[in-house]
């Protein structure tokens, strides 16, 4: 509302509406635009590593193809399905928020966090499996036993990229899990409704980004 004084504006506004915004829609739109911009920065953060992967893959295609045989594509596929499911559950939670269905919203968020936990557990299995065979990033690369035949030049580079990319991605999954815990406590206290569910929406956007990064990581590292 243009030209209203501060006093008039104070008179009646929803509790979640911050003072520098005029309407709830403006505040929600601004929050979403801000979140999308942040997601773009995250994409650029990961793109540095995708560039490194591309450069080294172009230079040593056969080494990369051979080294990726050591990654179990079935575990990778499982993680892909898990993350896609978690994107579904978080989208559903937003849908239920819009419909004021508090219980279903809560259940979907809990399911999301369980999926995320499962993803991290599978990653844990993968990582410990690699370590037990002497596969470490970079200078620590020393495959032994069954994997001794993979002790070839430039293979350490593949695994450096593998560990750094999936490591930073996994770090973002952990951050997401933390945010979901916070979100669930707020849902349980009834902070959100169809009138105000911005944190749920923004967390959902973040989670979709985490998912989509994995969608690119999986084929590049595991399948080709």
């Amino acid at each position, binding site marked *: 509302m243009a030209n209203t004084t501060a006093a008039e504006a104070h008179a009646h506004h929803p509790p979640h509406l911050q003072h520098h915004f005029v309407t709830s829609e403006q505040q929600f739109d601004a929050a979403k635009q801000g979140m999308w911009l942040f997601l773009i920065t995250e994409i650029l*953060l990961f793109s540095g590593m995708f560039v490194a992967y591309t450069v080294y893959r172009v230079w040593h295609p056969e080494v990369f193809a051979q080294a990726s045989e050591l990654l179990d594509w079935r575990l990778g596929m499982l993680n892909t399905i898990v993350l896609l499911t978690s994107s579904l559950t978080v989208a559903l939670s937003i849908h239920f928020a819009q419909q004021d269905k508090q219980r279903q919203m809560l259940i979907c968020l809990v399911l999301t966090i369980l999926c995320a936990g499962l993803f991290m557990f599978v990653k844990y299995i993968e990582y410990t499996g690699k370590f037990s065979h002497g596969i470490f990033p970079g200078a620590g690369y020393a495959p032994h036993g069954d994997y001794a035949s993979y002790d070839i030049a430039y293979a350490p580079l593949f695994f450096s990229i593998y560990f750094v990319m999936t490591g930073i991605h996994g770090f973002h999954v952990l951050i997401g899990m933390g945010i979901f815990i916070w979100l669930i406590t707020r849902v349980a206290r009834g902070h959100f409704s169809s009138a105000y569910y911005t944190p749920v929406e923004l967390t959902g956007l973040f989670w979709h980004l985490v998912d989509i990064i994995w969608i690119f990581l999986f084929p590049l590292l595991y399948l080709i």
Partner: protein
Amino acid sequence: MESATQPVGAAPQAAEAPPSGTHNYLTHERGLWSWLTTIDHKRIGILYAISLATFFLVGGVLAMLVRMELLTPGETIMGADAYNQSFTLHAVVMVFLFLIPGIPAVLGNFILPIHIGAKDVAFPRLNLASWYIFMIGATFAIGSVLVGGIDTGWTFYTPYSSQGSNAVLFMTTAVFIAGFAGIFTGINFIVTVHKMRAPGMTWNRLPLFVWAIYSTAIVQVLATPVIGITMVLLFLEKFMQIGIFDPALGGDPVLFQHFFWFYSHPAVYIMILPAMGIISELMGTFSRQKVSGYTFIALSSVAIAFLGFLVWGHHMFVAGQSPISSIIFSMLTFLIGIPTGIKVFNWVTTMYRGSVWLQTPMLYALMFLFLFTIGGLTGIMVGVLAVDVHLHDTYFIVAHFHYVMMGGTVIALIGGLHYWWPKITGKMYNERAGKIAAALVFVGFNLTFFTQFILGSRGMPRRYYDYADLLDRHPEFLGLHQASTVGSWILALGLFLILFYMLWSLFKGKQAPQNPWGALTLEWTHTTTPPSPHNFDRTPLVTRGPYDFYLADDVFGPRHTGDGAGDGAAQEGA
């Protein structure tokens, strides 16, 4: 005193702003805690101003030490290792802790919301968080000094940086953290300009300062994450030897340079675009004329922001990249001179047949035109491959970037600081002291850095601790280095004078009128001096452009005289 008649297009009650000096954003709350927990964009701008002034002082002292060492051949005041650490830290502090946050964090934070008619930025709490994140990053930078310092140069090239001291770990962490402050500020400004403009404030009525900050914010958002990942990779390279930059493990050290410069070139546009925005404001106000070519200046900011991402390879002409790459980067580098030149021509045209008022801010704007043009043209010169092969890593490059970064960004920042000082503090600085200091800065700057063009073109390499071995073939290097050092003293004198009279004005300065410059942008016409906490009594309704001086009668009242309306000493308007 405000105009007695109603400003065209403004809400009827806008002329009734309370007189200066009563309830404003400085007096609204008191005490250190109110400052450390503020979410007012104006106070956050001041927090940044104090931090950045401190870092500028630190970086400046380091520069003085570097120049002092070069006063005589051989050791003058420090050994070679200390010298390498000095120039490294000088640049790191100046680039990451002063120039990059620079104008957006200080003047952008303070002025941008008012320029668009908003009460605050879109995300005020994120704004405060940005400052804290920045300070934490700065703490890590200081930490790197305490654990032994780095001597890699601010560019941290591998393999030296990945194999050297552990202080590099602190510094990469510092840059990574401080980068997030820039990203959040950029996000904040973009959303603010999109979502929080007052009614009637169309994109074509935005002050050019806003266009400049907006373009800068785009660069901040897109480029800064790349230095983030570069620092992470450097950290991991050092900490875990992942080998991505190490040939022994199959990596490539030049890849680091590509990553580093993919951010650091756009970073220099983060530094200069806001400066250009300030110059647009100064040119318009102090020529009392519509800024020539508004659309061209606005769109050229966006063009520079975009083109800035395509030229990073011009830092690597001699790094071993292919000739084809070098040729392409060279051509793109020439291209970016075009929107830049468009701006300079438009600023000059703005003055033509205007009513030019040579107050201190305008002196700095004119200084910018001269110094930045030299800096920009020498940049085009070194964009020529055959020239750069000889001039790369010489003092010519050092002079080039100081002319654009200091002669450009810092001069514009000082001009903007003088321009907006009355609005921010409610005080007028001493105009005669301003002019004297400007003269000292101009003379000192040129003596310091023009000599370096000569040094570099005759072959003096940069980052060299000692030039004794070069004096046989180049005896002129001694005189040139000494002249440059003396210049640094004059420059420092001018800058300290500015600091002194600005601080003095806080305590003893004359009370500022609401609009000492007779400007037409919202911060001058619709807010008190200093502004109230929420900037505006009522949301402004905008129906004119920011430089429509032909409407001055409607804004200031028909009884205003040509000099009365803008005279810093006289009463405003009625």
